[in-house]
């Protein structure tokens, strides 16, 4: 077995994106001993991801990352939480080590992932998530001179397009499935959110000359061994576009697996919380996308409230409620604008693979009556991603809902699963 380490915290934060950073900082500034565990190699999450080719962070990111450094938070990066062996203890696994972390109070800031919808050819190499390709580019992938079609739904598509263009990619087309009238209403409603208007104008300038098709979506990806072209539906007609990459994502789905494993109840697919971001599980708070996909500003406010409440600073937390309320309206606006159209349910052909881990085609799944039946009869969702990709897809295609989460919440090494926790959880009552 690799190195085994034990750490004890008053407040443990899972997730190092904006919500997690804000929670950790506020809790540490309140005097708590705080740990922040994240599977990425550096704090920042997906939206503030660093890397060899990405040194430009927005000012908000820089100031929070500096505040994090000064706060005394213990960052545990490159560590993925996989198990709760006993109440008040989480286990995380690194590339060659394992951490046992005990805590008084827990803040879950597990973020979101992209929703992928299956269509013929979507398993070809170089068909990637929109955020996925952006992450790869920030991690060193050169795209100068490459043709990248971007398709799917949500504000992330434009941010990705801008980032790729800055790295020299050519963007022949952006396909947004939402119809033009919904996007127009969205743009009009932004008047209440000055910071979003600034972002919007910046993106509009950066994307000058790029074709943005609304009511448009991918029909099929083509290629032999890897992507060569994509056929899209555009203004009711199909159109073939040659490209090197197809960056595809249909808005975001919250990462609720760990919250569910720890006993947090969901409501409409999101972690249920009270005014102080406290979940239905004792001593467990949640902030950011798992409580509702609302973007970075909302995540920062929710994270701060969670961090303050986790350390008993209720008054300071309450002062942020009105700001949060306004940003939550923006989250609802996102949901209304980027809701998926029903035509996207008929993209898959009978042969299209829905579960990429176990190569289960659409034809075998449409005979099934539930997620559970599909797992038992076809192995859909039983591979290493544990249904994280095909689960949200089948939820949309067949209206199935996943019924349970079992440990380990991510595949882990056998020797790490076998490790016996040695912690006695810290005495309760002092953290809140």
């Amino acid at each position, binding site marked *: 077995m690799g190195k085994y380490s034990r750490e004890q915290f008053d407040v443990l934060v899972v997730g190092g994106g904006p919500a997690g950073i804000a929670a950790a900082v506020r809790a540490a500034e309140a005097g708590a001993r705080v740990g922040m565990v994240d599977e990425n190699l550096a704090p920042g999450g997906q939206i503030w991801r660093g890397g060899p080719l990405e040194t430009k962070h927005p000012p908000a990111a820089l100031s929070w990352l500096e505040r994090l450094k000064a706060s005394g938070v213990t960052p545990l990066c490159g560590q993925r939480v996989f198990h709760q062996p006993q109440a008040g203890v989480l286990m995380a696994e690194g590339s060659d080590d394992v951490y046992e972390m005990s805590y008084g109070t827990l803040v879950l800031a597990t973020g979101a992932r992209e929703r992928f919808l299956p269509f013929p050819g979507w398993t070809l190499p170089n068909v*990637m*998530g929109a*955020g996925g390709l952006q992450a790869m580019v920030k991690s060193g992938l050169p795209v100068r001179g490459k043709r990248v079609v971007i398709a799917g739904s949500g504000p992330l598509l434009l941010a990705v397009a801008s980032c790729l263009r800055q790295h020299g990619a050519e963007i022949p087309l952006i396909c947004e499935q939402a119809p033009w009238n919904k996007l127009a209403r969205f743009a009009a409603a932004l008047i209440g959110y000055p910071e979003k208007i600034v972002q919007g104008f910046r993106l509009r300038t950066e994307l000058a000359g790029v074709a943005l098709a609304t009511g448009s979506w991918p029909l099929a990806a083509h290629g032999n061994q890897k992507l060569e072209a994509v056929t899209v539906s555009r203004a009711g007609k199909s159109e073939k576009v040659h490209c090197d990459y197809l960056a595809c994502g249909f808005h975001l789905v919250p990462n609720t697996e760990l919250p569910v494993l720890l006993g947090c109840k969901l409501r409409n697919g999101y972690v249920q919380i009270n005014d102080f971001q406290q979940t239905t599980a004792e001593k467990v708070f949640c902030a950011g996308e798992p409580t509702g996909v609302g973007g970075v500003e909302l995540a920062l406010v929710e994270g701060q409230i969670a961090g303050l409440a986790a350390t008993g600073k209720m008054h300071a937390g309450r002062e942020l409620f009105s700001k949060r309320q306004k940003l939550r309206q923006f989250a609802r606006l996102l949901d209304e604008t980027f809701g998926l159209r029903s035509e996207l349910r008929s993209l898959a052909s009978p042969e299209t693979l829905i579960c990429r881990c176990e190569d289960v085609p659409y034809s075998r799944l449409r005979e099934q009556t539930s997620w559970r039946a599909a797992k038992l009869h076809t192995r859909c969702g039983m591979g290493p991603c544990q249904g994280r990709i095909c689960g949200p897809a089948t939820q949309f295609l067949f209206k199935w809902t996943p019924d349970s989460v079992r440990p380990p919440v991510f595949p882990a090494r056998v020797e790490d699963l076998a490790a016996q926790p040695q912690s006695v959880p810290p005495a309760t009552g002092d953290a809140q």
Partner: protein
Amino acid sequence: MPSDLTVRVNGQPIAVPAGSTVAVAMAIAGQPCRTSVTGEPRAALCGMGICFECRAIVNGIPHSRTCQIPCEADMEVSTDG
């Protein structure tokens, strides 16, 4: 621009910017990360360690999620399966 380092992908030397992930090296090499259970070539999809499509053999260790592993000089990487 950070300096380059070299890794071997399916035996072929590939130069990448220092700090790049192994998934990036495989994409530059034009090599699939893994072969699926029905024999399809696959490469990174989510880029954030969730989909497990980018797993490959890194320094002899199979099922390594290459989008989460930084390249090191003289690393040996090969397509899984």
